[in-house]
């Protein structure tokens, strides 16, 4: 049995570690690329959401590398993700790919159910082995998040943003190969030091933009046309609401234990959207409010084209913008999003934010003139 799973940003690093440590043979699909995109688009329903199409591309390319089993997330709706696996099954079947499927439905409080699924993957696995594998994978998630946060903070502050990106890439490779918690921690510390020691540029404090939206588009640089890197190079600090660890914690762990996480976000969203609408719709609104309160310069909202929960958020964000006097922009991304179009819009948005900040400074200075 050769297990594969779809890409989502750096998710493959901890997941591959986890599966390998459960003594499974893993086939990581080639990094999502133009070919996966065209394969996915060709075989998916036209108006399916973007992540769905990229998943199909990943699966086909993994099959070429010998994968025969798909590990996929499930869900109970109302977002389409919960039904991805069933539709993908039908499509891959019609294409003649003979996959086994292991669909991780949210375990609704049954830890035993999850255990059964793991046993199906590998009958001889012991509890100790599972716990060890989980700890190692989780450690990688934490390290990845820490490194990424540092990267976002530093990219607009260093002289050569590409250097920061290169350090980050190297750390990804090292983390992927690392086996052992001590080694992972060492890589993390080393990377953070290396990022810190890059030559800084002077000048004003960078603009801060909150990046909110649907989890896949936020986490997957291929889907968002490396929006974080682009903004960083424009001298903008990206303050992302969702990291892999937060997502796993709230969607897999807390859900399984029937706990509700992120109350402050939901509380913040309440006056605008007092209800879960699937996916990250409510969170997008909540984080936009929180970002405004924290004094960020703008909110950038990204989502796949036709994403239902995020369309609800998109309809509501203008109200948040108005009430808190913070600019927001929504970018709906799919296979048709053109790089130039996105860059132009980003540049215009950043220009707007910079001008607003300049105006605010002038106003403050005017107010400070004595006797006026």
């Amino acid at each position, binding site marked *: 049995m050769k297990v594969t799973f779809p890409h989502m940003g750096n998710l493959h690093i901890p997941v591959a570690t986890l599966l390998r440590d459960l003594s499974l043979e893993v086939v990581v699909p080639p990094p999502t690329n133009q070919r996966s995109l065209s394969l996915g688009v060709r075989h998916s*329903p036209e108006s*399916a959401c973007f992540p769905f199409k990229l998943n199909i591309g990943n699966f086909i390319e993994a099959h070429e590398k010998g994968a025969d089993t798909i590990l996929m997330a*499930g869900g109970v709706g109302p977002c389409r993700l919960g039904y991805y696996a069933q*539709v993908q099954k039908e499509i891959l079947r019609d294409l003649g790919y003979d996959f086994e499927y292991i669909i991780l439905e949210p375990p609704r409080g049954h830890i035993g159910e999850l255990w059964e699924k793991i046993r199906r993957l590998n009958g001889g696995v012991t509890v100790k082995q599972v716990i060890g594998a989980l700890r190692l994978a989780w450690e990688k998630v934490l390290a990845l998040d820490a490194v990424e946060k540092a990267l976002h903070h530093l990219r607009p502050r260093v002289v050569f943003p590409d250097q920061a990106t290169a350090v980050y890439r190297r750390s990804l490779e090292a983390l992927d190969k690392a086996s052992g918690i001590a080694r992972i921690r060492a890589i993390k510390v080393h990377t953070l030091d290396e990022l810190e020691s890059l030559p800084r540029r002077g000048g004003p404090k960078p603009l801060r933009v909150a990046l909110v939206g649907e989890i896949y588009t936020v986490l997957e640089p291929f889907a968002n046309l490396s929006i974080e890197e682009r903004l960083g190079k424009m001298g903008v600090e990206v303050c992302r609401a969702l990291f892999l660890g937060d997502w796993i914690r709230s969607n897999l762990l807390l859900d399984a234990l029937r706990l509700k996480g992120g109350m402050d976000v939901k509380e913040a969203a309440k006056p605008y959207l007092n209800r*879960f609408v699937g996916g990250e719709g409510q969170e997008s609104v909540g984080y936009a409010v929180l970002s405004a309160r924290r004094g960020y310069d703008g909110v950038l909202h990204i989502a796949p084209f036709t994403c239902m929960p995020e*369309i609800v958020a*998109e*309809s*509501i964000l203008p109200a948040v913008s108005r009430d808190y006097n913070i600019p927001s922009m929504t970018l709906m991304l799919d296979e048709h999003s053109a790089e130039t179009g996105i860059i132009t819009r980003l540049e215009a948005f950043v220009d707007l934010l910079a001008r607003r900040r300049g105006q605010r400074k002038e106003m403050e200075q005017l107010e400070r003139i004595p006797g006026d």
Partner: protein
Amino acid sequence: MRIGIPEALYYHDYYPLWEGFYRALGAEVVTSGPTNKTVINFGVESAVDDTCLPVKVFFGHTRLLAPRVDYLFCPRLVSVEDGAYTCPKILGLPDMVEQGLPNLPPLINTSFDFREGRVRLWAAIREAAKPLTRNPWRVQRAWKTGLSRLRVYRELLTQGKTPEEARQECLAGARLTRRGGSKGTGRSGLCIGILGHSYSIYDRYINHDLTRRVEGFGGKVITIDMVPPEILHQEAVREEKPLFWSAGRKNMAMAKYLVSNHQVDGIIQLASFGCGPDSMVAEVVERRVRRNGRVPFMLLNLDEHSGEAGLVTRLEAFMDMVRRRRVG
């Protein structure tokens, strides 16, 4: 007191219930009338570009109705059956409407969630009646009136009446009668199954009068509402993973039922542009029907631009093919 009910989204599924309920409470019920060009233009103007056609249509109706009423009925239908949602946009509909349309009268935006049990449902019903009365007995009586209207309406639909006819008969005080079977079970003409959301099938402006056109080509139409819900439910739970969208669940079950009962000569699946559930459900239905290979299938995607001529041409070709297969 005038309560406005937009003729969009779940209007065709529940109107007699809401109307019966509010009339019994002494309100005047005002509707926005059938969809037309103005409605579409209003909707396209007011809703965000990325949203689906049905929500745009809802926005249009709401904007048209808003200046004429004291309250606007825009409930949050979270779930209408166990284990299923409606859809994310319907969950967020009152919020979207409130943020997207200026100068609205107060909304009746009660959340209805049938998974939460009778107590919560009862609280929701009382909340929906609040602008009119707080007397629980009156509310209960009104709800019962509404429900009995709905039951008659559904029965009339099962008998093959159009929603307009059924609504009129309901208003005229039709009673629940079990007239045997749906009209014309005899297989003389062509029989075409039309699948899709009620607001795609019954909104004659959006689908360019599809039902009437199919009938014009000598076909008899069978829709989801003409099949007893029990049968569809049986089909739905047999699914490996039953869908978590109610409408999609019914649609999928209906497709299975039609294919396995050899009742139809062709299937037309309606989908709305930008509808999330439709993009998945229609795909699975299409693949399954084609794999089975016995029933011709056509997928019609509806959007605010779809030209009438294009639809008619495709329908004509489809009906020709269906007829040739029948003869041959």
